[in-house]
């Protein structure tokens, strides 16, 4: 009994600690700048105003940044799903020399920090004439989305019983047909999850976008907001409105992904 009370006390403290920044973000986005600057604090907006959202969408590059972020994240997740699905299946199911080495490589590569890669990648992209284009991000993002999603999908394909595709192959289906007709439909939820993970990873990315893109018209949301923040004056109302708008889609996706995320994150860790 005592342990349970203690558990709820600590969970409540954690929930408050997690909740306050969100509360401050949302309420700030709904305040007028007078309320934000006021010396008597406004702990909640009165009256509520949507002016920050209107100005953000009308007066800044935000709509363009959304378009750029969406395009890049969609493109990157499509590439990622394609590459990771094939590789994940191959590494999970088909036996051939070098398979274990390759699976280990996927993990190692997932752990290589972007800090080490961004300057050499930039010189390469520059050489290819891709610097300062959205293509640069489309090329660079798979360096972290593909290892993560392949790792996730290896586990996912392993969890599907092999009997079904074996039966299909006994009945005369080729390996490719068995993969395409039997395994993929069963793996659809995992593949979707991998795609959505790739989307959010790309949507959230900052360092590569900051380094590879200079043109104001091509910026993604995080870089655009970073510029907006270090303008002449701090537009906290608009910045928080932008933060809300950027966060909502990710949170919506994660309500679906939570199950997979917990599995994906922990499968490896628990196994050890």
């Amino acid at each position: 009994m005592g342990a349970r009370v203690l558990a709820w006390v600590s969970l409540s403290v954690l929930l408050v600690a997690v909740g306050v920044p969100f509360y401050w973000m949302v309420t700030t986005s709904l305040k007028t700048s007078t309320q934000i600057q006021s010396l008597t604090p406004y702990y909640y907006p009165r009256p509520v105003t949507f002016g920050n959202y209107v100005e953000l969408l009308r007066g800044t590059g935000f709509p363009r940044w959304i378009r750029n972020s969406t395009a890049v994240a969609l493109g990157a997740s499509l590439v990622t799903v394609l590459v990771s699905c094939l590789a994940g299946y191959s590494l999970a199911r088909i036996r051939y020399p070098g398979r274990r080495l390759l699976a280990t490589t996927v993990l190692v590569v997932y752990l290589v920090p972007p800090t080490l890669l961004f300057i050499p990648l930039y010189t390469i992209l520059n050489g290819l004439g891709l610097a300062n284009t959205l293509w640069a991000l489309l090329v660079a993002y798979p360096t972290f989305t593909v290892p993560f999603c392949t790792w996730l999908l290896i586990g996912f394909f392993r969890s599907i019983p092999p009997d079904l595709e074996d039966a299909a192959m006994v009945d005369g289906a080729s390996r490719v047909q068995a993969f395409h007709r039997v395994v993929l439909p069963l793996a659809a939820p995992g593949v979707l999850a991998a795609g959505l993970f790739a989307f959010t990873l790309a949507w959230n990315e900052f360092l590569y976008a900051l380094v590879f893109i200079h043109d104001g018209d091509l910026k993604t949301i995080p870089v655009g907001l970073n510029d907006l923040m270090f303008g002449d004056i701090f537009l906290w109302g608009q910045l928080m409105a932008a933060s809300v708008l950027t966060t909502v889609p990710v949170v919506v996706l994660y309500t679906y992904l939570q199950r997979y995320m917990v599995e994906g994150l922990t499968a490896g860790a628990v196994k050890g």
Partner: protein
Amino acid sequence: MLPPDAGIGYLFVLPLVVLVLLLIAYPLGSAVYLSLTEKYVGYPPRFVGLKNYVELTGDPVFRKVIWNSAVFTVGSVTVKLMIGLLMALSLHQALFARRLVRGLLLLPWVVPTVITALAWHWMFDALRGFINVSLETLGLIGEPIAWLGQPSTAMMAVVVVNIWRGFPFFGVSLLAGLQAIPADLYEAAAVDGASATQRFRHVTLPGLRPVIFVTTLISTIFTLNDFNIVYVMTRGGPGIATHILATYTYEVGFQALRWGRAVAVSMYLMPLVVVMIVVLARRLTRED
């Protein structure tokens, strides 16, 4: 003689291999080379051997950056582990609404890091930020504290934000670890008359050790290389008080435009990172 379907296996894995070789292995190799050169933007690299590393080692600014990275990483990871353990143990206890609470506590980990840093920048704002405003309301401070404007509080602030973002990762991993400890172990311990504290020390902690080990290593690698939080909140300032490896790499590379030196900054802890990655990879790919 290759096993049947080996050809298709190789074919399927080929795009991945090409990607890894072209976009990860090759850049890493060229990073090693670049760090041994003097390379200014727009000029070809000039080989200088270990000069960059030697100069960095003697450079007080760089030493401070290394020290900052250590403080940032050790401080963040230690507290993340402790709070994560608290979160996991509490969630393991509380059966009611566990999934919902876990989902809510995961939110910081889901939000784009730049947004997190922005929101906390505003929380720490000296004049109208939530922290100063509420501390004033409570009468705890007489005048505003410039959290991000003083070296000691600025470092504390970026560590706090890293903890806020990263503890759910520990919490969720450790919870899964707790759930994987067989219940009979607890029952056996209870039958033998072990107290709650003894059960925690002799059943829970040993059971969690592998998960703690792996999670801490992963988090250390990523915290050591964090860029977003510090860059968005302080740009490494005031002065160089919060500059860590990644932000300093960026500054040397894209403000001072000395790429060879910048890559050497990022490569400096490479041996440490490699050791951690190898240990982790061996752990995680061990056949069960």
